Each structure stands twice: as C-alpha cells, then as structure tokens.
C-alpha cells in the first residue's frame, strides 16, 4: 500500500517532466550531430553545446521540480496524502535521479560512441569526457539536496550559482594536470590513477551529498 503512494508520486513527477527530458535529449543530440562535420571549430562548438543541456538539466530540474513545488504550495497537498516526509523525500530523490539520468546516460553514451566510432576527438579523451560529464551530475546532487533541505528558494539558487561558477574553474584546473591532458590527446584510451581517482571522487561525493540530504531531511520536525 505504502509503496504505491510513493510510486504514484514518482510517476507524477515523471509525467510532469517528460517534455524537459525530451528537449534535453534533442538538444544534446543536435550538438553531437554538429560535431563530426567540418573543422575544429565545429568540434569546439559541438562540445560546448553538448555540455550545456547536461548542466541545464542538472540545475533546472531540482529548482523546477522541487523548488517550484514548494513555492507553488503544492507541498501541503502532497503531505495531505498518506505519506511521511521521508517517503516524500525518497520519491523526490528517485524521480529526480531517474529523470536526470535518462538523458544523461543517453547523451554521454552517444558521445562516447561517437568518439569511439567516428573519432571526432582523439580516443584518448574518453576518460576526460567522462570526468567532465560527471560534473553536472555532481552539481545536480548538490542542487537537489540544497533545494530539498533548504526551506526557501535561496538555498537552491545559491547552490546553482556555486556550481555554475565552479565549472569553468574546474575545467581550467584540469587542463593544468598533465596526467589528464597527455593521454587525452592520444589515440588510445589510457586509464591512469589520476583519472580513476577523480572519477571515483566525483561518484563518492555525489553519493555522500545524497546521503546527507536524506539525513538532514529525517531530522526535520516541521514539514509544511
């Protein structure tokens, strides 16, 4: 009985976010489509255009899906249903993850495939590609958590601003790390410890953020 209410909530979120998902996939696909043609410029443009929807998705989804729900006072309606606050949080995290991961996995796989098959950029850049792609995911976890836990819009927006401003910095720092840049220009995929370390940290931090969100939500005493 209980699971079905959580299930209904997840289904509802899916129903309401279908269009944004579609737009993201289409946009990302278009960016990937441009990249193989023409010269280097197209590659750069395609590359940038590729990451934008991922970032936008990571940021807009929590603000829109969760923040809006609170601002538009839908939360009182949801909490009138037979769910606990933790169940609500669970449904929100699951639906947000699913809704984000569907386009993310689709686009990142497509990008990797494109590199493998068409050699748009050197094959060796795949690890860096993955590292860069995980950043919006990390940002997504942070913003989702901040929006859920923070009682006002401000927190989600602050997290949003924080992530947006750090992407550029992160990209820059990465270009300064030889053990990342050297293999990136190679023709073969090379997995070294730096790459693996960074990838692992990104994943671990993301999971920690989700766990922290859960923990903070469970401590709350006033929900609406």
């Amino acid at each position, binding site marked *: 009985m209980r699971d079905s209410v959580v299930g209904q909530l997840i289904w*509802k979120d899916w129903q309401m976010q279908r269009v944004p998902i579609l737009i993201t996939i289409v946009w990302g696909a278009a960016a990937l489509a441009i990249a193989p043609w023409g010269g280097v410029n197209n590659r750069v443009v395609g590359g940038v255009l590729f990451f934008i929807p991922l970032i936008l998705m990571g940021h807009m989804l929590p603000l829109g899906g969760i923040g809006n729900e609170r601002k*538009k006072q*839908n939360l*009182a*309606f949801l909490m*009138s249903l*037979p769910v606990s606050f933790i169940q609500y949080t669970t449904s929100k995290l699951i639906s947000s993850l699913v809704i984000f991961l569907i386009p993310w996995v689709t686009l990142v796989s497509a990008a990797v495939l494109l590199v493998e098959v068409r050699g748009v950029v050197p094959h060796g850049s795949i690890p860096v590609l993955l590292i860069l792609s995980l950043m919006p995911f990390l940002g997504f976890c942070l913003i989702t958590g901040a929006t859920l836990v923070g009682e006002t819009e401000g927190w989600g927006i602050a997290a949003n601003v924080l992530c947006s401003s750090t992407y550029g910095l992160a990209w820059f720092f990465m270009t300064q790390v030889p053990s990342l840049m050297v293999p990136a220009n190679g023709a073969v995929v090379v997995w070294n410890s730096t790459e693996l370390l960074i990838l692992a940290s990104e994943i671990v931090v993301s999971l920690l953020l989700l766990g922290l969100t859960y923990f903070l939500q469970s401590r709350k*005493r*006033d929900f*609406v």
Partner: protein
Amino acid sequence: MSDLAIELSGVGKRYKYFALDNIHLKVPAGQIMGLIGPNGAGKSTTIRIMLGLVHQDSGEVRVLGHRMPTEQVAAKWDIGFASEDMRLYESMTLGWHMSFMQRIYPNWDSAYAQLLLKRFGLRADQKIKGLSHGQRVKATLLLVLARKAKLLVLDEPTTGLDPVARHEILRELTAVMAEEGRSILFSSHNTHDVEQISDQITFIDRGRIIDSMDKEMYLDRWRRLRLEVPHGVELPALPGIIGIKRDGRLAVATANAYVPDLAHAYESTGARVQRVENMTLEEIFVANVEHSREEVEA
C-alpha cells in the same frame, strides 16, 4: 478504542514570535467542530499539528486513535485535509487530480465525484490555472469530499467565497453527517458558517483555548441585557456578567453565564430590564476575545 476523533492534551509549540500554549481539545466522533479565532490565533498551527505536519514541542496528539506525528501515514488514509494555502498543480487538469486521488485511495467514490462536479459547476478538463479562486477552493474540496474520508480537517474552507459557493460547500459538509461516525473539524473566522453547522465550538485566541463546548449550550449562556437605569442607581457587579456599557440612563450588560436571576437582580436595584436578547456567534466572538484579553492583561 476511544470515541474521540481528535484529542489534543496539553499541546504546546513555540515559534519565535508566537506560541501555542497548553492546548486541550476533544472532538467527539460523528460531530462537527468549528474552530474560531482571530487571524494569527493559532488555528492553522493547531490544525497542522493534528495532521502531523508540524511536530508539537509538548503534549499528546491522537487523531482517529493514532498518535501524531509518528503514526501520521496510517492516520492520513482516513483524513481528508484541505487548507487555505494548499495548491493543486497549475498545469494539470482537475480530472488529472481526480484520477490521481482515485489511484491512491480505495474509498474514492466516482459517482459522488461526478455529482460534485455538477453541483460545484466545475469541469474535469479544466486546467487548475484557469480556475478562479472560488473554483479552486471548490476543486480542492471536491477531491477531499469524494474520498468519503472518516475525518475531514479543513482550514478555512469557505474563506473568500461568494455566498452561492459558500452555500454549496456548507450543504456538502452537513451532508457528511448523514453517515454516522464521520467527523469534521473546520476553522473559520466566518461566524455565520460556524454557528450554522457546528455541533461543538472552540474559541482560540493568541495561542490559547478560551472556550470549548457544545454550541447550543454555549449560545444559551450568552445574553445581552438592555437596561434602563434611573439616575443615582449604581449597577452592581454580578457573577456571569462580563461587561457593562452605560450611557446616561441606558445600559447594556453582556452575560456569558446567563440565568434569569440576573435580570431579577438588576430589577431589584431599581433598574428596569427592557429586553434580554440572544447574541449571535459573531457578537459573542468579539465580546469573548475582548474579555479574555482583558483578563490576561489584568
């Protein structure tokens, strides 16, 4: 199993600028309780505590036998809640919301839901954002009513509605009483509505319960005595009289514990009782709140 739909014992809640203090409240099963109080009195907070949406700092809360907020999920299966600041999803239709509720609640009565659509003048294919305020309120109440919930907890269900809409809603609320064992608690500062349909009345002001009792008994205790007082006669302070306003030879005494002896007592001082009037709940409301605030300050 107790026959109380709602029971609050010694409930307290502290906020920065406001506190609920020692709230005791009992709503017997099968009755309608009207919760009245000025704005900011604590009606909404008290209601949220009943739903487990706000965790009380002290005291016990039992709703339909369940302890709140720990057992709120079990309780909410049988509680229909609607509050003034609750909103449905703007971009979805009323029909979508109805299907949503139907999938969750086994008690959903589709036939009744359709009837309510007609009675309330709503259409299922309308998006919520296209509805007027009154229509939204009715839509939210439709979703609650069609569930045939055992207990309805409504925070200001008729506020901001035109007289026709208010009547439509009062009609459905009183119809709930046709089935024994179903209860309603609703808050309002519309005293006419409370006076008309409540079996029990509770007054709350500045975070404290002032009065809580049977409506008929309560209305019976309050009277306004219009007196003609000759010069030189001092009106005595009598038990059960909470205030006297005097203007020359005319005086009005307000009683909150009226017995016919009071009239006789005045007459024996030389004053003449012109009329003993019943008071409307609105008049009682104002007199009661003013009196209780004076007492607190004294």
